[in-house]
């Protein structure tokens, strides 16, 4: 690793850390700006003022706001995210359980979205102007403009209710005994439940990389080196995928980090419609219940994931495109 890369890398990490710090502060401020006294939701409102005071003390809500902020930052650095107002359990335990469920849905969905998007984009760019290009591009526009929850409901009503091919929601058939990681996620039952939400997300989020790839490919296909490739007598497939395709991937890399944030936002909707026990649904519940510790931590977790994704994309740039120099 050259010195340039190292300095650039350190700079980017410092910037990312500063971003997370600002986000953490913003989160703290925003949640305290929400109208309503959180102690009132922790407790039945039919409580005496003494009990309310006791609860305020238990959760540190009786301290001055600056002290609460300092404690919040200090605890966060030590990985302590506090205790849920309603559930009486540490937030980190709670997040761990729900995050895993979200990752097993989002990761395959994203991979599928990009596989479809990249290959599809390359193909329609190659057949530019054909009816296949027009149809695919139009479909991509339509799916991208339709709200994802609507798409989800349509899929449920067609594939689950009408045709009965897949379950209408949940991650596993209700009543399945609790089991370890492999026995839970490497089962036919899980895959059956995964199918609908995954396909909906793949279609919805695959449209963006598809359109980006198409545009990028069209540009690259007009370049001289493509003519050279063809002049060398290379097969059309080789020209498209090996040469043009690879050169068109750079904007896609940018979109990965951006799309990551959208997917997280979308997971809130998809998980709600499909009764998927993930982080998105936990967030919705925590916000409506004013469960600050849980809501704060889950928003922050998502922010960290997005910032980390951006960082990774920046660093990977150099590997994808040798023309980029770190100075």
């Amino acid at each position, binding site marked *: 690793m050259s010195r340039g890369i190292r300095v650039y890398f350190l700079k980017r990490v410092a910037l990312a850390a500063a971003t997370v710090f600002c986000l953490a502060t913003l989160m703290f401020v925003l949640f305290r700006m929400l109208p309503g006294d959180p102690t009132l939701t922790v407790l039945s409102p039919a409580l*005496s*003022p003494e009990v309310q005071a006791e609860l305020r003390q238990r959760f540190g809500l009786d301290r001055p706001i600056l002290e609460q902020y300092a404690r919040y930052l200090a605890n966060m650095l030590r990985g302590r995210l506090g205790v849920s107002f309603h559930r009486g359990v540490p937030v980190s335990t709670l997040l761990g359980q729900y995050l895993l469920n979200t990752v097993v849905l989002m990761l395959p969905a994203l991979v599928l979205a990009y596989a479809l998007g990249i290959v599809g984009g390359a193909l329609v760019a190659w057949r530019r102007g054909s009816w296949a290009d027009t149809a695919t591009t139009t479909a991509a526009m339509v799916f991208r403009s339709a709200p994802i929850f609507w798409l989800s409901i349509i899929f449920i009503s067609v594939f689950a209710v009408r045709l009965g091919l897949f379950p209408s929601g949940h991650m596993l058939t209700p009543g399945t005994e609790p089991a370890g990681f492999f026995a839970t996620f490497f089962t036919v039952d899980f895959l059956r439940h995964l199918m609908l939400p995954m396909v909906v997300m793949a279609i919805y989020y695959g449209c963006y990389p598809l359109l980006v790839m198409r545009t990028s490919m069209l540009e690259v296909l007009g370049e001289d080196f493509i003519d050279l490739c063809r002049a060398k007598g290379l097969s059309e497939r080789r020209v498209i995928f090996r040469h043009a395709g690879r050169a068109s991937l750079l904007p896609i890399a940018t979109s990965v980090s951006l799309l990551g944030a959208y997917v997280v936002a979308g997971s809130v909707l998809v998980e709600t419609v499909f009764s998927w026990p993930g982080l998105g649904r936990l967030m919705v519940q925590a916000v409506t219940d004013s469960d600050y510790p849980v809501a704060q931590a889950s928003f922050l977790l998502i922010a960290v994931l997005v910032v980390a994704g951006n960082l990774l994309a920046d660093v990977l740039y150099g590997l994808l495109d040798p023309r980029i120099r770190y100075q």
Partner: protein
Amino acid sequence: MTMRWRAVRLVPFAMALALLAGSLTVRSGQAADPQPIAPINLVTWTKAQYPVQYEEASVLAEAWKKLGLEVKIEALNFPNPLLERVFKTREFDGAIVYFTGQLERLDPEFYTYNAFHSSRAVEGGWNFSGIANKDLDRLLEAQRAEYDPAKRKVIVDQIQEWIFRESPWLVMVNQDEVQAYNKANFSDPVIPKVTGFNDPQAFFTLKPRGARKVIRWASPISDLKTINPILASESSQIRVLYLAYDTLVKYGPDTTPGPWAASEIRALGPTVVEVTLRNDLKFHDGVKLTADDVKFTFDLLIKHNAPYFKTVLEPLESVEVVSPTKVRFKLKRPYAPFITQTLAMTPLLPKHVWEKIDKPTEYENIPAIGSGPFKFDHWKKGQEVKFSRFADHFRPPAADGVLLVFFGTREGAYTALVKQEADVLDRMLSHQVDELSKLEHVQVVRVASNAADTVVLNARRKPFDDPQFRTALSYAIPRKQILDESYNGLGTLGGSVIAPANEAWSDRKIKPLEHNVEKAREILKKAGYGWDGNGRLTMPAR
């Protein structure tokens, strides 16, 4: 996409601004000339959360406009800031409050003393209207000191008549409880009156008739918050616990309370209640349930201020173990609801489990060990909670277990019953009732409940402190229209604060007020109110 994300983050600002604007509304003061009455601030629920209550606010605004009143509707998010507004700051003229039908609310204490005694007008109390009347207070105190149900009923009737006459709470509709079960898989449930499947007893009696032996209960909520009785604060969370925990008293299917885990209950004097336990009580881990556990439970819940039980445990002074099967409760003052409410609500906890817990308020309570007809099996967060049949119970259930499945949406839970993936649906939207009735495998259950959709008026403010003004508002409410349009006719018109479904306590002499705008205007006129040139209602001249 970006726009949507940004909009979500702006919501808190928008809400803060809306609140600020609301609090800046200037109220007209006293003046020599008759002043037009300032716009009524009517607090209701958000359209997204409770469309029915939101809609009702518009109906009321329309109705009261005919009296020359302007209504400003303010829709607030539940639980916050709605609860804060009605329980704490009390900043509202009127508020639409929906009281869910619950077993714990069958004892008249809830709708009388709890809601109208002057001591309950303090912050956090349920006396939303701020009623403080010495005569009423005396009656309220008398009813809770009277152990004889017949004599208590006479006083409770007087209280209901006072409330109906003075109109601080205007009950609009008592909604029916509409639920459904899968009759292809289960049969013969004993459905308790008033609550239906909200009372876990319905689950004790459902008999399997096919391959599926475990009842799948589809829930529109997205998860339970806790199964620790000390932490739980809402009835929707607590009622699940009664599958696994016994109480000393239980309401029968006909809503009369009777001994359950107790074999005998006697009031030895106005402040001493003696309870003899059944001798066949056993916890799920095999340990016998004795009087020590009973004492331990009450002491523990009081010590940790368990929110859900706080009010009903307050009159309890001490618990004394007389013998392994006998306990004596000493009360601070005569308190009739102790037997029918406190003992019916308090879940019996095992001493040998809880005494080892350092911080009971941070205990997850997994596995939840009780002595009830079903024993806790597992809880997969955000997915399901499973209970299995406890064969050693004195009244073992017919089914092999109950599986509570969380859907997070009403549509999801409903679809599951349609597809036969679920067996019991305890809440549904009114259009779903018609759809479900058409299905061969579904039995729709409808019981008149003690749920009360009510407008609560704030008597701390003018002119809402005037019973004549309040009565006029009540006459102007189109109750029939609300019942038909908002509830699809599934309920009864509201009259007394104690719903007619609560047969033992409701005052049958009280009938719902007819919708009569002319009469309302007449009452206002007689009380000295007038109308200005623009047709706006004005305060009585002094």
